[in-house]
């Protein structure tokens, strides 16, 4: 079953197209990565999926719901590239707030928050305010939030940015664990090596056009690595 269905989506800023007739589907339980150089339209597509922006044409459905319907976000966890929240909150406070916004309450909320803090190894930061945390610690709080609530789809925008090598390893483990639990992960990333190891499927965007959408296995049948495939595809496009 397709958890994300994107059909003929176009979005322009004035005369410039950010996305042009993009269509793609993401199957439930897969790790999907959206790749592309800067300005390719990746963030625009994520914003359209979260209804933060409105498309000029086309439609996007998540879990069968149009993105304009709040039900489409009922099972989504989203972490932007630089996780940021009001600095007066403690790590526990943020996670509790996220839980309440996802309809989790009482003892269940406390239990989920405690286990998320443990999972991300930030239990000792539970009562520390965000204003007193490093970027890496903040990012871990953001990542802990994806473990709160019943999320079928996890959208991560450049999740490895700002993490130290231990954090990257931990995140990869969490992503694998979430996949084992049947969750779908939609990852925007520049780090092609990590994506090759982690993902089932990739899509490559350039200047708002979808150049490729398929499995990592099919990429590796054609080229030695995802990086080579990506480089050749983008270079050909630039040459045209």
């Amino acid at each position, binding site marked *: 079953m397709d958890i994300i269905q994107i059909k003929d989506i176009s979005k322009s800023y004035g005369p410039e197209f950010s996305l042009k007739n993009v269509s793609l589907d993401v199957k439930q339980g897969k790790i999907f990565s959206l790749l592309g150089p800067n300005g390719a339209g990746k963030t625009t597509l994520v*914003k359209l999926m*979260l*209804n*933060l*922006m*409105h498309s000029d044409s086309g439609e996007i459905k998540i879990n069968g719901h149009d993105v304009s319907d*709040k*039900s489409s*976000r*009922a099972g*989504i966890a*989203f972490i*932007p590239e*630089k996780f*940021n*929240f*009001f600095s*007066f909150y403690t790590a526990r406070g943020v996670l509790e*707030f*996220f839980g*309440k*916004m*996802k*309809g*989790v*309450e009482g003892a269940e909320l406390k239990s989920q928050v405690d286990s998320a803090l443990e999972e991300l190894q930030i239990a000792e930061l539970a009562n520390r305010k965000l204003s007193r945390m490093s970027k890496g610690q903040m990012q871990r709080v953001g990542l802990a939030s994806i473990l709160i609530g019943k999320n079928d789809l996890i*959208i991560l925008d450049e999740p490895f940015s700002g993490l130290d090598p231990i954090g990257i390893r931990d995140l990869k483990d969490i992503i694998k664990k979430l996949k084992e639990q049947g969750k779908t992960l939609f990852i925007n990333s520049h780090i092609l090596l990590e994506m090759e190891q982690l993902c089932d499927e990739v899509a490559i965007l350039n200047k708002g056009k979808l150049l490729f959408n398929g499995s990592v296995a099919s990429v590796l049948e054609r080229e030695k690595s995802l990086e080579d495939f990506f480089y050749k595809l983008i270079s050909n496009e630039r040459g045209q």
Partner: protein
Amino acid sequence: MNSQYKALILDTILKEARSKTLIFIFLATTASIVLGHLVLSAMNSDMGQGAALSMAGIDILSMNFRILNSISFIIALVFGVSVFRSDFENNIIYQYLSFPISRTEYFFLRVLGTWLLVFIYYAYAYALSAILFSFAFKSFVFSWSHLLSFGVLNLYLLLVIFISIFFSLLMNKIGALFVTFVCCVASSVAYGTFSKLPLKEQFQDVSVFKVVGAFFYYLFPRITFLDELSSKILSKEGMVENVLQQAIHLVVISVVFIFIANYFVKKKDF
């Protein structure tokens, strides 16, 4: 009320309650009320106690409330323009809108949370004044008209907050503060002029000022009506002229404004 609504309202109060402006106004208001209480206590001990003084206490309390009304207007304005804008400028709005709530819910819960914060400030200052002034005059200076006036003024503050948040959707904080302030003043001047004129005279001798005045009088929520109503109740100086007509206009235009604001909220790209 579901947990999402409670969480978002509390979040609104918590984030704005940390404002240095609010803390300063809160402390300044407390100091002014306590100072007023000390002066009145000294006057009372010099002049003795009596019914006349108790009446003076009610008048002074009424005057005190009018000052509080003006301060509350400024707080409503400042927090109204900040509450949505700070989410946007700190890039946190993406996080809020990725939760399973509609934009309409997000917008109106922010309005409600801001209003509750102003309400808490106003209720605190109101109660402190009534208690301390009662001690100063050794009699209970509270009257029911104060409570009714308090209720009406809170409706006025709710509308000011709504209008300032509406403008903050369209422009930056400074711009929204300026435009909301100008609109509220223009609406107040237009109300002061047009509400006293018979309908025929409202459209005689048309000038630029009259056209602008008519625009604000007919197409902008008549928030000054609520301010006037609150003052009349407080001072017991009779009733606002054409109170029913003014109330109907206020409700109709406010509802139109709410629909327009909701449209902008739904259509905005973040």
